[in-house]
C-alpha cells in the first residue's frame, strides 16, 4: 500500500477526550527515536498543547544492535493543562524492538498501550534483549493493551517503489510509526513532511520514501481494524498566555541567554570549553553564532578552557566556560584565581550522575556542594540554578548581570535533563530586558586595581591597552589598599572578609524569595532547586487540592541566598527538600539557618516522579 495523497482527518471515528498523555518512543540507537520524538514534539506544539520532553539515550555512540544498553528513547508529556514534567508513567510505549520493550515496560501504567513492531521480534533479538521466552506469546504483558503490527514489513512494502536497499527502506519505519501516532492524536503531518523534504532535498527518493512511510502509518490507523486496541484521542490545546511561542531546549536557552546578557552589558563573549557529555551542545550552539560577537575556543583540556576564559575576561571580554562535574573539578584551581583576582566569569555546569565518570548521559543534581564549596580555602562565588529549559534563558542573563556588576565568577547550575529536554517557550521582547552596561575604567587618577565600589564592593575593571592603568594582578594575596602583593596577616583577614562580604552583599541586589504555591501560613514547605521544579510543583499543587497545607519555594539563588529565606523557612513546621542527590541543599539549609529540614533524595539517573514527592508530603504531614 502506497499513499502519497495526504489523507483527510477521519472525523467519523469517535475520539476519546484526554487531559494529557505521556508517550515514550523507544528503539535501537539507530532507529531514529530522538528524531521521531522531536517531530512529535513540534506537531504537538503546533496543535497548541503544552508539553515537556525527556530524551534519554545511551552513553555509547553506536551500541550493538538489539541490546538493552543500546536503547534510545524519547518521552513526551503533552496536554491541555500546564505540563511541568515529562510524566511519571507512560500511557503509551512505542517499542521498536524487544530490547526497548525489556527496558521500558516497567514505566508503563497498568492498562497502558504498547505499540510494537512484531517484525523485529526475531528469536535472536528476543534472546539478546534478555527474554527467556517470546513476550508476545507468554503472559508477561498481561494487564497492558497490545498493538502488534509488523511495522518493519509494512514499511518495506510502502517504500518499495523508491528503489532503496533493504537497510534504507527499514530506516523509514520510525516515520511509519510516527504516522500512526499522528493519526491517534490528530496531529498534522504537514510540518514533518516539509521538514523531510528539506532535510533530504539532495536525495529525493529518500525524502519520498520517508513521506510515504509517514502517510502509510497514518493511513493504517484510518483503515485497519484496530478498534478495541486503539482509537483516536483528542487532547485539546492548552490555555496559555497569548504570544509567539517556540520549543526551546535548556542548552539553546543558555546560549541565547548568555548572548543577550553580553549584549545588555556591551561585551564580547569568549567561550572556552572542552567537549564533555552532556555539556557539549552549548559549545556547538555558540560555535554557530560567531557573527553575534561570540568567540568560541575548544581548548586542549578543561583547565585550559577556563584559563583562556579568565584570560579573556582579564582582557575585557566576558569569559565563559562550560562543563559537567568532572570537568568542573579540573577547573577548581582556576576558579580560585578568578575569585582571588575578582574577574567576571561564568561557569556553566551541566550536571550528570557521578562520582567520577558516573553515568554521563543520566541526570543528577549532585554538584551543589562542589559549586558552593568545591575549592581550596575560603573561595565564595555566586551560584545560580535553572529550573526548566525556558528558565535557563532568564537565569543566564542574570548570571551575566551579577558577574559583571560584582566582578565575580558565577556558577550556573543546569543538568543533563534540562540541557536536552524541551518545552514551549514564549519568545520574549528582548528590548524590554534591562541593560546593565559595563564601563572599563580609564582614569589613571588615584587608580589601583582593587579599589572597590562602595555599594557593590566590586573592584575596578581596568583592562590592558588602557594608558596609565598598567598594573599586575595574580593569585598571591593583594593589599586591600594598593592591590600590590601583600603577605600581611591583617590584610589577609581583611581581604578574605571583603571577598565573602561582597558575595553575601549581593543578596541586597537580588529579588526576595517568593512562593510558587501557598505561603507562610502553611504547615509544610517543599523547597527545591534546579530541574526538580516540575515534579515538585505538580506534587504540591495536587497535595493542596487534596487539602494538605503545603507551600512551595524554588531557589534560583543559592549563593547568596535571598535575604528573606531564613525567615521564610523558620515560619514552617516542616521543611521538605527533594533533591536528585544524597542530601546537599538540605545540609546547607540546616547549616545556614539551623532549621529542621528533611531531605527526599533520589539518584536513579532520572527525574522525580510527581507521585514520589506527593507520598513524601503525605508521610511528613502524617508523621
Amino acid at each position: 500500500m502506497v499513499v502519497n495523497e495526504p489523507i483527510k482527518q477521519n472525523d467519523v471515528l469517535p475520539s476519546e477526550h484526554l487531559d494529557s498523555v505521556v508517550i515514550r518512543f523507544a528503539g535501537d540507537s539507530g532507529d531514529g527515536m530522538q528524531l521521531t520524538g522531536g517531530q512529535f514534539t513540534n506537531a504537538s506544539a503546533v496543535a497548541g498543547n503544552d508539553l515537556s520532553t525527556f530524551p534519554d539515550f545511551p552513553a555509547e555512540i553506536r551500541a550493538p544492535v538489539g541490546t538493552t544498553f543500546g536503547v534510545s528513547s524519547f518521552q513526551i508529556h503533552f496536554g491541555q493543562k500546564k505540563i511541568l514534567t515529562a510524566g511519571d508513567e507512560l500511557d503509551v510505549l512505542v517499542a521498536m524492538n524487544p530490547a526497548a520493550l525489556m527496558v521500558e515496560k516497567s514505566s508503563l501504567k497498568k492498562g497502558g498501550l504498547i505499540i510494537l513492531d512484531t517484525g523485529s521480534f526475531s528469536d535472536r533479538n528476543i534472546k539478546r534483549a534478555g527474554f527467556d521466552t517470546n513476550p508476545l506469546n507468554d503472559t508477561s504483558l498481561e494487564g497492558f493493551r497490545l498493538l502488534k503490527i509488523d511495522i518493519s514489513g509494512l514499511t518495506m512494502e510502502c517504500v518499495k517503489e523508491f528503489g532503496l536497499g533493504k537497510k534504507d527502506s527499514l530506516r523509514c519505519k520510525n516515520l511509519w510509526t510516527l504516522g500512526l501516532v499522528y493519526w491517534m492524536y490528530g496531529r498534522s503531518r504537514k510540518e514533518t513532511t516539509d521538514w523531510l523534504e528539506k532535510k533530504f532535498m539532495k536525495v529525493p527518493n529518500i525524502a519520498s520514501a520517508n513521506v510515504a512511510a509517514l502517510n502509510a502509518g497514518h493511513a493504517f490507523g484510518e483503515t485497519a481494524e484496530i478498534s478495541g486496541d486503539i482509537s483516536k484521542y483528542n487532547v485539546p490545546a492548552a490555555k496559555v498566555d497569548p504570544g509567539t511561542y517556540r520549543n526551546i531546549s535548556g542548552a539553546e536557552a543558555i546560549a541565547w541567554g548568555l548572548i543577550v546578557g553580553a549584549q545588555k552589558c556591551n561585551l564580547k563573549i569568549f567561550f572556552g570549553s572542552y567537549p564533555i557529555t552532556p555539556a557539549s551542545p552549548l559549545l556547538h550552539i555558540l560555535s554557530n553564532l560567531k557573527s553575534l560577537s561570540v568567540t568560541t575556543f575548544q581548548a586542549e583540556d578543561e583547565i585550559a578552557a577556563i584559563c583562556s576564559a579568565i584570560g579573556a575576561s582579564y582582557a575585557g571580554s566576558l569569559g565563559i566556560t562550560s562543563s559537567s562535574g568532572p570537568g568542573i573539578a579540573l577547573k577548581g584551581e582556576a576558579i580560585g584565581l578568578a575569585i582571588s583576582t575578582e574577574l567576571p566569569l561564568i561557569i556553566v555546569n551541566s550536571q550528570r550522575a557521578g562520582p567520577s565518570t558516573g553515568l554521563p548521559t543520566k541526570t543528577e543534581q549532585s554538584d551543589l556542594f562542589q559549586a558552593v564549596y568545591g575549592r581550596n580555602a575560603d573561595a565564595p562565588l555566586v551560584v545560580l540554578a535553572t529550573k526548566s529549559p525556558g528558565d535557563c534563558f532568564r537565569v543566564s542573563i542574570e548570571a551575566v548581570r551579577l558577574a559583571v556588576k560584582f566582578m565575580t565568577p558565577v556558577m550556573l547550575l543546569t543538568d543533563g535533563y534540562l540541557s536536552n529536554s524541551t518545552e514551549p517557550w514564549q519568545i520574549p521582547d528582548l528590548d524590554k530586558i534591562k541593560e546593565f552596561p559595563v564601563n572599563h575604567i580609564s582614569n589613571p587618577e588615584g587608580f589601583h586595581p582593587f579599589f572597590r565600589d562602595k555599594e557593590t564592593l566590586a573592584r575596578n575593571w581596568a583592562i590592558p591597552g588602557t594608558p596609565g592603568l598598567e598594573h599586575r594582578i595574580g593569585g598571591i594575596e593583594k593589599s586591600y589598599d594598593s592591590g600590590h602583593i601583600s603577605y600581611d596577616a591583617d590584610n589577609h583577614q581583611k581581604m578574605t572578609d571583603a571577598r565573602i562580604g561582597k558575595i553575601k552583599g549581593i543578596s541586597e541586589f537580588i529579588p526576595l524569595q517568593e512562593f510558587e504555591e501557598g505561603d507562610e501560613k502553611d504547615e509544610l514547605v517543599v523547597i527545591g532547586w534546579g530541574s526538580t521544579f516540575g515534579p515538585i510543583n505538580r506534587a504540591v499543587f495536587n497535595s493542596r487540592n487534596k487539602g494538605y497545607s503545603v507551600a512551595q519555594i524554588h531557589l534560583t539563588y543559592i549563593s547568596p541566598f535571598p535575604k528573606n529565606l531564613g525567615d521564610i523557612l523558620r515560619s514552617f513546621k516542616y521543611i521538605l527538600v527533594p533533591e536528585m542527590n544524597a542530601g546537599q541543599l538540605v545540609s546547607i539549609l540546616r547549616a545556614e539557618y539551623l532549621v529542621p529540614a528533611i531531605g527526599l533524595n533520589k539518584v536513579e539517573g532520572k527525574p522525580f516522579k510527581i507521585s514520589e514527592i506527593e507520598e513524601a508530603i503525605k508521610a511528613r504531614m502524617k508523621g
Partner: protein
Amino acid sequence: MNVQPEKLKANDFASDQEVRWCPGCGDYAILKALQRTMPDLGVKKEEVVFVSGIGCAARFPYYMSTFGFHTIHGRAPAFATGIKIANPDLDVWVVGGDGDMLSIGGNHLIHVLRRNVNLQLLIFNNEIYGLTKGQYSPTSRIGTRSPSTPSGSLESPISAVQLALGAGARFIARSLDTDQKHLPMVFSRAHKHTGTSLVEIFQNCIVYNDGVFDGFTAKDVSAEKQIKLEDGKPLIYGKDRNKGLIIKKNSLELTSVELGEKYTESDLLVHNEKDRTLANLLASMDSPDLPVAVGVIYCDPIETYDQLISDQEKQANEDKPNLKINDIINSGYTWKV
C-alpha cells in the same frame, strides 16, 4: 604643537616593586636584558601584557611596569591564549620556568605552539625546582641529586627545543642569562616573529643548581662549547673560529671538524632558519664533543591562530550580515497563541 613622546628607557619598564629573587639569580640578568630590549620594540607600555604561571621565573610580571597577570601553575599559555584572542592588539609575553612550562604545563605548551598564537614564550630553564626548594625538574640530567631524589634522578631530561619542534613551533631560539649582548638580540627576533616564539634561556639557579651550565657557559670554555647561529652563515665556532659543523659521512648526524688542511669554511653547513631537519639536528647536539647551539634555531612563519580566528569571524559576519539574536530566537518552528 605636536610633542613627540620621548623614547622610553629600560628603567621605564621597571615597576616600583622590590625584586625578590635570591641575590645572584640568573633571573636578574634576564629581567635586565628584557627591560633594555623593550624600548627598541616600538610598543606602547599599556599594550604589553606579561603572563606567568607559578615558580621563581613566574614572579617576572611583578617587576615589569606593563600589564601583568601572575596566574596558576603551568597554565600561563592558556591564559595568554585567551588574552590574545580577546584583544589581538596586545603584545603578549609568557614567562615560566622549566617546571611550569615542561612539567605541569607541558600540555598547554604543546598546544599553544601548535596553534601558533601570536605571542612570545620565554622558558627560564635552570634544570631544577627553585621555589619549592630544590627538587629535580623535567630538564634535570639523569643522576641529579635533590631532596626528592637523594640517590639521583632516574628520568631522561626533556628538551624544550625538540619538544617545540615536535609540537609544530615556528620560532625557536635559545640564549643564556648572562649573555647581555645575545639575549636582547634573541628577544628582539622573538618579538619580530609573528606567531608563537619560543625562547629557551639557560638560567643559573645559584642556590639549588649553581654552575649546572658551566660546561658551556663558563668564560674560559664558552667559545669552544657554544655555537652562535646566524641565518645564512656557516656553522662555525671556537675561540679562533677554527671549528665547524658538517654532516657525518653515511649518517644523518652532525659532527664537529677542525678547519685547516682537511676542511675549509666552504665544507661547513650553512645555517638556514627555515630548515626543520637542520633545526632538529642542532637541537639534539648533546655529546661532549659537540657545541650547544644558541641563537635562532628555527624561524618559518605561517598564519597565526588569532588571525585565523578573526578571519573566520569576519567571514561569519559577511555570510550573515545584520544577523540579530532576535532572528535566531525567532527561527525554526514558532506559533502564535
